[in-house]
């Protein structure tokens, strides 16, 4: 408001000063174009009607200075007509200027409003994204807690009943019955195996929850398999599983953490062995596939239904009564971390093949 008044006063003063200057310079010097300056200042700062008023004042100042200079015209109406023309010209200029100013003002307002809306939307999206991640985390923690509870309550149920049985046996042992002691030993062994089960389940959950920092080195897949598979042989013999191996000796090395990669392969191999409860053939192959190393682990076990195959890598999905459903999910996690991918093809009643692709170590592709 203050700036409007100041601009109006300045415009009036300028108009009067120009009138005086116009009078002093006489009729030969044309300075009437300068009257635009106060008119435009008043219109731009104080608005359309003030602009019109200052425009009228300028036309009047021009007319008065013209009269005082003693101009003579053929008709006394000519100077009045000229003053009106000047005023109309000012009117048009003020009109256009204020129209431009208004649209400029609205444009600015719109840009500001839209920018604010956009900012709010970005903030809202960020908030939603954050709360979605939070909700997903909570859901995972919830489903993990339910799974942990189930896995732990089963062995605890067994331990609890066995403890009650031992209590009964100890009461009987008060009569120095040797059979009771033997019974107690059996029950304690049973409880020990259930404690081991609890420990294993917790280990698997912990491993899945936090993957240790990998220590990567260039490694030969053939060397890794040759070394580690020998430890598995007794278990395979026990399960009547025949192992077939075919390793590409010229396969370039891959970059990876040998322990983590073996963990992934072992989970897949365990899955294959479990799919062959009556024994069968386990095949482990490595070969070159473009710029990747391809590891295939196949069994000729019972295969999977399409639903089982679809949920294969979903955490907590299992078809085994003593499975946590984390083995293959963990294997996938490790392979992905190594920049590779894991897939499975299966045929119900005929067996499954897991394909694991791993990139070669940089500079090792021939």
């Amino acid at each position, binding site marked *: 408001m203050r700036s409007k008044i100041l601009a109006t006063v300045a415009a009036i003063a300028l108009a009067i000063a120009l009138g005086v200057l116009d009078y002093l310079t006489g009729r030969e010097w044309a300075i009437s174009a300068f009257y635009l300056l106060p008119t435009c200042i008043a219109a731009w700062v104080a608005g359309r009607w003030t602009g019109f008023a200052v425009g009228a004042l300028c036309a009047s100042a021009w007319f008065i200075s013209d009269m005082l200079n003693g101009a003579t015209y053929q008709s006394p109406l000519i100077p009045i007509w000229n003053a009106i023309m000047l005023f109309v010209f000012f009117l048009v200029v003020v009109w256009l200027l204020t129209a431009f100013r208004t649209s400029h003002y609205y444009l600015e307002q719109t840009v500001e409003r839209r920018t604010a809306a956009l900012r709010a939307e970005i903030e809202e999206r960020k908030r939603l994204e954050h709360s979605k991640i939070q909700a997903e985390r909570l859901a995972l923690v919830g489903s993990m807690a339910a799974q942990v509870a189930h896995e732990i*309550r089963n*062995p605890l149920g067994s331990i609890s*009943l066995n403890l009650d049985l031992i209590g009964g046996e100890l009461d009987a042992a008060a009569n120095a019955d040797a059979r009771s002691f033997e019974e107690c030993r059996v029950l304690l062994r049973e409880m020990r195996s259930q404690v081991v089960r609890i420990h294993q389940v917790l280990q698997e959950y912990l491993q899945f929850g936090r993957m240790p920092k990998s220590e990567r080195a260039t490694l030969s897949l053939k060397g890794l398999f040759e070394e580690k598979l020998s430890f598995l042989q007794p278990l395979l013999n026990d399960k009547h599983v025949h192992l077939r191996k075919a390793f590409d000796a010229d396969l370039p090395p891959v970059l990876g953490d040998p322990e983590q990669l073996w963990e992934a392969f072992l989970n897949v191999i365990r899955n294959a062995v479990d799919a062959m409860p009556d024994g069968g053939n386990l095949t482990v192959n490595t070969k070159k596939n473009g710029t990747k190393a391809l590891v295939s682990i196949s069994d000729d076990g019972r295969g999977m239904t399409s639903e089982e195959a679809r949920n294969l890598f979903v955490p907590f999905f299992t078809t085994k009564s003593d499975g946590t459903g984390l083995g293959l999910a963990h294997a996938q996690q490790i392979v992905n971390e190594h920049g590779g991918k894991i897939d499975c093809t299966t045929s119900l009643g005929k067996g499954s093949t897991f394909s694991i692709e791993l990139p070669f170590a940089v500079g090792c592709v021939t």
Partner: protein
Amino acid sequence: MSDLRNKSVLVVDDNQGMLRAMTRVLSKEGMRVTGVSDPTVVVSKLMESETRFDLVITDLRMPMFSGRGVLALASALPELPVIIITAFGGPDAEAQAIRLGAFAFLEKPVAAAELIDVVKRALAPPPLIPEG
């Protein structure tokens, strides 16, 4: 309370340790226990077995064939009480199990005395309804 001796019970639990422990507890009471860890054979056990079971005790969440399936199967056989014993407890699961006709709903871990007590109540003859 009823006498458990020579009563026949079918116990279904995919957790081997739990199955062995329940089998031991019930056998000590003199019951004839048939333990099944593969829930898919429950159908054949219930329908084709020579033994006529007096009671079924089953886990709720098992792969392939859940305790609800066992419950539905057992409900086809009148006067065969079913006790659910589960690691996935909670009021919802309990309400659903009872609605489906379970005699009782127990949460693991359960004490031997509690298990025996529930089994005794399940096998108790129905109370005589006074005439008139």
